[in-house]
């Protein structure tokens, strides 16, 4: 049977859900599943790894693992790969997952294929395989060939749903704790502190997003969008044309190089729906486009559309909600 090593993502001991996507992918490879944890993981976390299919959990201990450090994690992963010699190594394609995989790949001087959605040809223990991976943040797929003994891959985030192993794993995973042997120099990229941002509804978790694009026309014309977002318990989002003009902060940007949203409803007003914006919005359950141009890509792809000037339509919607709420 093949062996697969999965990187556990956690934030100072609490398991991050992305790990479960990588484990779910690993279960499809018909392999013994090993997990590497850099630092301490709480007991619930270890149990969850087992529920999602981990057979063996390797816990690397070191003072440097008190917080995240891409080089320290990458070195520990590289060392574990040399030690286990698995057929494949997987992480979820998050910021952290991709960075640690890249660090390990650099250290071993082997290829690393980021954001894979499926193994398209061959078995994971073959010398050559083909896989499907995402390009352009999800706008395009690439069938990529890879020649490598140990295949380092990340699984495109949210490309599959994490599910627990059928019937559960039965047994709790075997836990093997060891002292990682890390050079002191790796301390240089260990996180030394944090700024914590405001909490509450964020763009990525908002149930409704009211988005505005170039059609909003200026920095001072966002009143109706903010008001509607507030009435619906949501957040304002925007396109890159907006952030590029300095009308809204980049933290509001939806898209390939902004935030991926998945609200119940996305109201996209004055947005043309360029592919790089669309990939950030396509996970929305429903989309309502408000646009003067009924041929705009956003309109064509939306569930609902209103033709018109957003500066007239949005205030009318606000007035109608107020009227119904009494």
């Amino acid at each position: 049977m093949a062996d697969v090593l999965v990187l556990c993502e956690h934030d100072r001991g609490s398991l991050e859900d992305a790990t479960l996507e990588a484990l779910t992918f690993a279960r499809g490879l018909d392999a013994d599943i090993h997990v590497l944890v850099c630092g301490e993981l709480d007991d619930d976390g270890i149990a969850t790894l087992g529920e999602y299919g981990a057979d063996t959990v390797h816990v690397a201990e070191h003072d440097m693992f008190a917080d995240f450090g891409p080089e320290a994690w990458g070195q520990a992963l590289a060392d574990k790969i040399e030690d286990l010699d698995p057929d494949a190594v997987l992480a979820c394609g998050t910021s952290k997952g991709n960075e640690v995989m890249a660090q390990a790949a650099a250290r071993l001087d082997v290829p690393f294929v980021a954001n894979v959605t499926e193994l398209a040809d061959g078995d994971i223990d073959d010398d050559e395989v083909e896989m499907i991976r995402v390009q352009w943040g999800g706008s395009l797929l690439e069938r990529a060939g890879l020649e490598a003994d140990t295949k380092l891959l990340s699984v495109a985030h949210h490309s599959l749903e994490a599910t627990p192993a059928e019937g559960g794993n039965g047994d709790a995973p075997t836990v093997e704790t060891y002292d990682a042997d890390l050079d002191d120099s790796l301390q240089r990229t260990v996180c030394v502190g944090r700024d914590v941002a405001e909490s509450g509804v964020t763009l990525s978790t908002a149930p409704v997003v009211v988005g505005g694009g170039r059609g909003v026309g200026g920095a001072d014309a966002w009143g109706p969008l903010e008001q509607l977002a507030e009435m619906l318990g949501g957040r304002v989002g925007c396109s890159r044309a907006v952030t590029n003009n300095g009308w809204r902060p980049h933290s509001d940007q939806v898209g390939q190089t902004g935030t991926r949203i998945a609200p119940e409803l996305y109201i996209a007003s004055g947005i043309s729906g360029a592919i790089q914006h669309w990939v950030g919005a396509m996970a929305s359950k429903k989309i309502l486009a408000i646009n003067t141009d009924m041929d705009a890509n956003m309109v064509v792809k939306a569930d609902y559309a209103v033709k018109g000037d957003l500066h007239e339509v949005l205030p009318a919607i606000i007035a109608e909600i107020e009227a119904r709420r009494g």
Partner: protein
Amino acid sequence: MRVLVCVKRVPAPGAKINITADGQDVDAAHLGFTVSPHEECGVEEAVQLVEKHGGEATVLTLGPGDADEQLRYAASLGVQQAVLLQTDGTPWDPQATARAITTAIVDLESENGEPFDLVLFGNESADSGGFQVGVRVAHALERPMVNAIKGIELDLDNASVTAKREIDGGREIYEMATPAVLGVKEGINLPRYPTMRGRLASKKVEVKVVEVDPETGDQTRVTLQQPPEQVSNTVHLGDGPAAASAVVDVLDELGVL
């Protein structure tokens, strides 16, 4: 102070990305070209660092001769030096790309007689999105590297840099000695538009062209494919303010009122 920023020429598609008939490339026949927004912010950051600390910014790309356009765009924003590692335009895998960029950096630094205080990359390239070229280059140069950076404070006196990395709900802080390598994300700054003077000056910048040996790597492209199309039958709720009532009915139906 010396800072280097690495950018990659990519097509700038609109509503859809079309693929050539042989499935090997994006059909760029009617498209303009650009760099990833992350890299554009890298260029802006490099220019701002020079404005603040003095010194010189250099932009580097590995790509076809046409990538001259992206180098000159960076120059029009204020970058002083430009280097083109010229290929025949075939896609190189991230490992091969990183090897060539590393060699070029070693050569540039030996010519300069000192290392770049900072080498900036984009968080990921716009097209292939490998999330690794910068990490590989940093490792080969034995320099610290952190990706997903949204804030840089350079302290020349202490030869150190403080960098902030974006995470869910906040930012992690890193402190590194220079020379260091950082992968930056859009939002770190608001890139300027080129001025007329900048555009004129960029025409005069001498682009240093370095021929590189063809190399593709162990990760190869078989074909490009379209993702499954999401079809939707858009329901037209009406025109102008008169549509408000139908819209609010929908909000009610969806349970978001």
